[in-house]
């Protein structure tokens, strides 16, 4: 009986199926929802683009007139001579201190938490609070830095600058990003599968040999990108530096040696921009915008490096 097709039997069956599976449904709710989502995206982008366009529009003239001279000259009361050179140097010096202090401490803390600490209520309490610390406003760390590095440890951090030195600023910023470094490093370590640890321990490696030869190398790309992003965050922080004195309007000409500079007054990019923005002279408006451009470009560059590294070394398990 099968296979003997009656001519009139085919079209109705196919027609029924076609009717059942075709049709253009108009779902008003879904369309509306999609529209709202698209609007949210466009609104966010529009705000960003407006800001950028405004900044570039105001600041471009500075680069057009002065070129890289703006990036190298020091601060001045004369808008025609003021530049971000000292601030760039200050920010870079701060970053070096941040890296030296926060990376070993943060990565070390993360290794301890992930690889050594037993899973107790106390460890969980600490982990939760490190996350909370990452969310604490940076100004609070600024107060801490003021109390500890600027005032209490003045003799160590800057005997001749009342403690308001690059060292104090760098240490304060290091504390700001420390929780972020710990969290990102922890996540990178956690992404290394337990089976890899078991494999290493299973052939008679100690815990340290397992971490050194396997866990850390496999987590390194993740740790690296996390720490670079933390640096970008530190680079843009103004509030804590205002507290600990990175807002010196004018820095004596830099014929001092590097060590003296580290213990001396300094300027950083975000605080310089903050200072310029508050000056009454209208000519500083353009300089402010140009300074923001330099700041943003640096941060974008750093983030781009992090993304490239992550994509290049990302590991699939």
């Amino acid at each position, binding site marked *: 009986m099968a296979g003997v097709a009656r001519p009139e039997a085919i079209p109705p069956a196919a027609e029924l199926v076609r009717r059942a599976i075709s049709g253009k449904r108009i779902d008003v709710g879904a369309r509306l929802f999609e529209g709202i989502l698209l609007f949210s995206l466009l609104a966010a982008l529009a705000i960003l683009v407006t800001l950028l366009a405004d900044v570039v529009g105001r600041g471009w003239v500075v680069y057009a007139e002065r070129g890289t001279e703006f990036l190298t000259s020091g601060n001045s009361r004369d808008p025609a001579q003021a530049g971000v050179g000292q601030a760039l140097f200050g920010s870079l010096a701060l970053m070096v201190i941040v890296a030296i202090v926060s990376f070993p401490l943060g990565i070390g803390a993360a290794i301890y938490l992930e690889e050594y600490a037993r899973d107790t209520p106390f460890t969980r309490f600490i982990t939760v609070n490190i996350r909370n610390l990452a969310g604490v406003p940076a100004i609070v760390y600024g107060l801490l830095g003021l109390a500890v590095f600027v005032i209490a440890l003045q003799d160590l951090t800057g005997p001749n600058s009342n403690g308001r030195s690059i060292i104090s600023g760098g240490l304060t910023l290091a504390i700001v990003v420390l929780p972020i470094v710990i969290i990102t490093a922890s996540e990178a370590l956690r992404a290394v599968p337990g089976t890899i640890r078991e494999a290493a321990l299973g052939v008679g*490696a100690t815990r340290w040999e397992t971490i050194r030869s396997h866990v850390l190398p496999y987590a390194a790309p993740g740790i690296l990108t996390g720490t670079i992003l933390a640096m970008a965050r530190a680079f843009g922080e103004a509030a804590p530096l205002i507290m600990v004195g990175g807002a010196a309007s004018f820095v004596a000409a830099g014929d001092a040696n590097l060590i003296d500079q580290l213990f001396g007054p300094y300027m950083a990019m975000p605080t310089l921009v903050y200072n310029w923005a508050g000056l009454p002279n209208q000519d500083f408006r353009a300089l402010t915008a140009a300074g923001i451009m330099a700041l943003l470009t640096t941060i974008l560059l750093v983030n781009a490096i992090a993304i490239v590294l992550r994509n290049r070394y990302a590991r699939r398990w």
Partner: protein
Amino acid sequence: MTIRTETEDAAATGVSEPESPTIRVMTSGHELDESERIAPGTSGSTKHLEFDDDQVVFELDQLSCFYGSFRAVRDISLKVPKNQITALIGPSGCGKSTLLRSFNRMNDLIDSARIEGRILYHGVDLYEDGVDAVEVRRRIGMVFQKPNPFPKSIYDNVAFGPRVAGFRGNMDQLVEQSLRRAAIWDEVKDKLRTPGTSLSGGQQQRLCIARAIAVEPDVILMDEPCSALDPIATLKIEELMRELKENYTIVIVTHNMQQAARVSDVTAFLTMGEDRAGYLVEMAPTQELFTRPTNRLTEDYITGRFG
């Protein structure tokens, strides 16, 4: 269903004659009647295997394993014979893997895990004070359920163990020898510098076996080593196991009863009590266990009526 005769069943399961001259079976001498069968939740063995003392690698004495307050394995006493393949079979969740991982103190890595009772390794309690878990694992290697090569070169995968053990000899030779014994040398000899993770699943598992034997262990523990592999790769691993038992004592956990029947000399059947703790139902030479199980639970399991 009553217990079938030996001839019928040998034909049915295809079990070959076990090559285990040292095994003597001590049965209780009579068929168990209904009242003597083990009630779920209680523990014990209906048949005792006795070996010469120098042929015993592990002796478990009333071993219980806990995760926190949960008892995963209850009061297991058994002996693992030297240079033979001992299979642990049983339904999912009956504690086979937990038991196996207590043999080389792999469970130390889990904070909440602890044991009661004793595991004697050549007469020495593995959990007594002063025993170094790292040294234990150097002698009692492990192959895991999912192949887990390091994301490093094939060469480095094998060489890592000897390196941390302070091996001072000819590493190239040791790597080659280990890969040969794991029956994978011919497939990888031209690409020792490529990542171990680039191999197929079956090759990865043999690489893991090569990695395990590179440190010259005494025992190899295998935790369902073929569960992630296709039948051909599985057969290769099983063949390899039969070769390896000349030099090593092997304990294998498997879900696959045919595999236990094919490769093992001795089989222990575990199941779960009502408290979800695994216990030993029966341990016997594999052929015995599969043809003349003395416990109804064992029989139900191996005939596929349960589990």
